[in-house]
C-alpha cells in the first residue's frame, strides 16, 4: 500500500509555528491529518529550582498574546503555596485585568486574524487577505477591531502598568498596587464605545452566518466532550469556579469538581511526532477522550452568562445546537463575540463595584504548602498551572497544561474533516490550503509567542509518497 502525505508548513495567521501533514490513502482520499508542533520550549523543565514567586513572571513569558491568563493561573497556584486567599479587591482586580485580556485576545483573533477570511472570502487573493486588506475593504469593521483591542489593552495597562508582561503587578496573595480613581474613570468612560463596537459586530456576524453554512458544516463539525470552569451556579466563569465536563449530547459527564482534582479527570498522552501533549478525558481514555475547551466549550457548558446582553445572545446561540451542544468549530467565532460582550458587561460591573478602588489588595505569607494548582480560563480555554516546591519555596516540579493542548486531539479531527472535504486528487489549491489553516485558526491556537498576523509567511506544501518520493511541491 502506498501512503502519501501532503505537508503544509507553516500555518500563517495563528500564534506560533505549526506544521500540518495530510496522509492520503491508496485511492488518494484523505486518511488522516496530523497537526504538529515542532518547537520545544521547556518551561516545565527550566523553571525547576526557581523560587515559586518568580513563576508568574517566568511562565507568563510563555505567551505574548495571553500573558495575563498565565499570570493569573500562576498567581493562583502561588496563593495555594502560601495558603491564603487574596483580599476581595485583589480578586476583583485580577478579574478585571483578565477581562482586558479576554477582550484584547478575542478581538485580535476575530478582527485581525479571522475576519479577512470571513469577509474577503476564503478563496480571495492571499496578499489581500489580511488586516490591511480588511482596512481597505471594510474600514469601519477594522476600526472597531482596533478600538476593541485597544480597550482590552487599556484595561491591562491601567490595572497593571504595562500592556504586555505586566508581571510586576501580581504577587502571591494579591496584587501590588491598587486601581487609582483616575484610571478607573478613564476605563469607565471608554465602555460605551467598546460596547457599541461589540454589538454592531455581533449583529453583522449573525447576518453573515447564512452565507457561511458550508464552512459551518465542514469546519470541525463533530461531537466531542467540552470542558471549562463554571461558577457555583453553573454560569460562565473565567477566573475561578469549578470544572465541568459535558458529554457530546450536553449531559454532565463531570459535574463541578474542584479544579485541583484535574489529574483525576484529565490524562496526558504524548506522541513521538509532536512536542505538544495530548490531554484526554480519563473516563473515555486515549485517544477517544477528545474534549474541546475555549469559547465554544465555555458557552456550551455554561447555563447562563450572568449579564443581560450576553445572556440574550447566549440564548440565541444555544438555539443552533437545538438541545445539544453547538458542535461546529466554526462557531468558535460566534462564541468569541458573545464572550467579548460578556466581558464588557462584566468590566462595567467590576468598575462600578465599590470595592474596586480599595487599597487593601495584598495578604502576605511565606511557604505553607508544598503544592499549588492554579486554574483559569484563558481566552483559548482552560489553563492549568501546577507546581510543587520544597520547604524553601523552590520549584521542584511544574506541570502546565495550556488551552491549545487540551484541543490537540480535536485539531487533528477537525483538520482531517476539512482535508477530507477539500483535498481532491492529490491537488492542493489555495482555497483548500487556507481552509485547512482557517479551521485551526477558528480554534485560535496559541502555539508559542510569535505573531504572524500580517504579511506573507511562506507556506510550503509537499506531497510525499511513503518511499520518500516528492510527488508535488507548492510554496506560496
Amino acid at each position, binding site marked *: 500500500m502506498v501512503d502519501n502525505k501532503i505537508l503544509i508548513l507553516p500555518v500563517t495567521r495563528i500564534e506560533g509555528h505549526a506544521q500540518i501533514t495530510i496522509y492520503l490513502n491508496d485511492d488518494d482520499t484523505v486518511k488522516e491529518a496530523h497537526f504538529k508542533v515542532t518547537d520545544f520550549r521547556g518551561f516545565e523543565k527550566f523553571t525547576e529550582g526557581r*523560587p515559586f514567586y*518568580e513563576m508568574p*513572571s517566568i511562565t507568563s*513569558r510563555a505567551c505574548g498574546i495571553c500573558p495575563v491568563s498565565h499570570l493569573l493561573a500562576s498567581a493562583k497556584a502561588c496563593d495555594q503555596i502560601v495558603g491564603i486567599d487574596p483580599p476581595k479587591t485583589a480578586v476583583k482586580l485580577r478579574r478585571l485585568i483578565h477581562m482586558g485580556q479576554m477582550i484584547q485576545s478575542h478581538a485580535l483573533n476575530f478582527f485581525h486574524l479571522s475576519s479577512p477570511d470571513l469577509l474577503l472570502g476564503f478563496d480571495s487573493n492571499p496578499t489581500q487577505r489580511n488586516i490591511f486588506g480588511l482596512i481597505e475593504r471594510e474600514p469601519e469593521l477594522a476600526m472597531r477591531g482596533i478600538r476593541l483591542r485597544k480597550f482590552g489593552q487599556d484595561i491591562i495597562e491601567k490595572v497593571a502598568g504595562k500592556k504586555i508582561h505586566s508581571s*510586576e503587578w501580581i*504577587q502571591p496573595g494579591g496584587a*501590588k498596587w491598587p486601581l487609582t480613581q483616575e484610571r478607573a474613570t478613564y476605563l469607565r468612560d471608554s465602555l460605551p464605545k467598546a460596547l457599541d463596537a461589540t454589538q454592531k459586530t455581533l449583529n453583522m456576524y449573525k447576518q453573515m452566518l447564512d452565507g457561511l453554512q458550508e464552512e459551518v458544516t465542514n469546519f470541525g463539525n463533530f461531537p466531542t466532550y467540552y470542558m471549562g470552569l463554571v461558577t457555583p451556579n453553573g454560569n460562565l466563569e473565567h477566573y475561578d469556579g469549578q470544572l465541568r465536563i459535558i458529554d457530546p449530547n450536553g449531559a454532565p459527564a463531570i459535574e463541578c469538581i474542584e479544579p485541583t482534582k484535574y489529574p483525576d479527570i484529565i490524562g496526558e498522552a504524548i506522541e513521538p511526532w509532536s512536542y505538544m501533549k495530548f490531554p484526554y478525558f480519563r473516563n473515555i481514555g486515549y485517544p477517544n477522550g477528545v474534549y474541546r475547551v475555549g469559547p465554544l466549550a465555555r458557552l456550551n457548558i455554561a447555563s447562563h452568562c450572568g449579564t443581560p446582553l450576553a445572556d440574550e445572545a447566549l440564548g440565541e446561540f444555544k438555539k443552533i445546537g437545538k438541545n445539544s451542544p453547538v458542535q461546529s468549530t466554526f462557531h468558535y467565532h460566534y462564541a468569541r463575540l458573545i464572550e467579548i460582550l460578556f466581558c464588557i458587561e462584566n468590566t462595567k460591573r467590576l468598575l462600578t463595584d465599590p470595592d474596586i478602588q480599595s487599597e487593601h489588595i495584598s495578604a502576605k505569607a511565606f511557604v505553607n504548602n508544598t503544592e499549588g494548582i492554579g486554574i483559569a480560563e484563558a481566552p483559548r480555554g482552560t489553563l492549568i498551572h501546577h507546581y510543587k516546591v520544597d520547604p*524553601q*519555596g*523552590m520549584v521542584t516540579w511544574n506541570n502546565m497544561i495550556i488551552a491549545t493542548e487540551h484541543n490537540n486531539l480535536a485539531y487533528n479531527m477537525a483538520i482531517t474533516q476539512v482535508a477530507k472535504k477539500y483535498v481532491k486528487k492529490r491537488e492542493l489549491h489555495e482555497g483548500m490550503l487556507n481552509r485547512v489553516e482557517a479551521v485551526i485558526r477558528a480554534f485560535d491556537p496559541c502555539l508559542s509567542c510569535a505573531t504572524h498576523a500580517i504579511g506573507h509567511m511562506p507556506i510550503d506544501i509537499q506531497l510525499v509518497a511513503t518511499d520518500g518520493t516528492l510527488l508535488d511541491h507548492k510554496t506560496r
Partner: protein
Amino acid sequence: MNTHPMKLKIDGVDVECSEGSTILTAAKTVGINIPTLCYLEGLTPYGGCRLCLVEVSGTNKLFPACATPVASGMEVTTQSPKLHEYRKMVLQTLLAERTHICSVCIANDHCELQTQTNQYGVDHVFYERNWSCNEIDSTHDFLVIDRNRCILCTRCVRACDEIEGVHTLDLKFHGKNTDVIMDQDELWSKACSCTSCRKCAKVCPVGAIYVEGENIEYTKDPQVIAFIVERRKCLK
C-alpha cells in the same frame, strides 16, 4: 588628614582636591560623572568591576577611578572611544559570567547593571555565556541570595563588615569559582553572626540579594551607607 592641595586636570577641567582623594571623588567635585558598579560611597573602594576605568596621560595603562589616588599634575580622560569600548566589554563579561535574564529578574527596572548596560547600548553579549546554575539560598527568614545574578562587586561583603560590623559575608575561592558565602559557607539560616539588618540587600546593585515578598524598589537603598557614615562622624 593631610590637606595639602593636589592640582590636576580631568577632561581638561582644572581640579583642586585634597591628597588621598581618588580620581572618582575628584571628578565628582567638578560635576564629572564616571560610571561605577562596585564602588559605593561610604565603603572602602574595591576596584573590582573595572567599569570606572579612565585614561591617564603619559601611560597606556588604564586606571580604576574609584581606587586610584590623585597626584598633582595628572591629566585624566574619563570619556573616549577606547574607554567606551572597554566599558562595553566589562558589561558584557559581567552579563556573560552568570545567568542574567532581566525580563524575569526581580530587579528588572531597578538594577544598576541593567541601567549601565542600557546606557552603553550593550544589546548583545559577544562572549560565550556561562549559564550558571547555583542553588538559591532562601533559608533566612526574609533574605534571599540568588548567586546566579551576583556580579561579585562585594558591596554586600563590605557593608556587612565595615558598616554592620559583623562580617557574616565574605568571598570563597578564586576566579570563576568565586562566590559570596555566609559565615563558614553555611546556609544563611545557619549563619549565626547575621543580625538580619538587610544592609546587604539594600546595597546589592543587582537582583542577587533581596527581601522575599518585598518590592525591590523599597528594599534597594544604597545611599543609606553614606548616610550612616555621615551620622557616625557627627556622633564622634
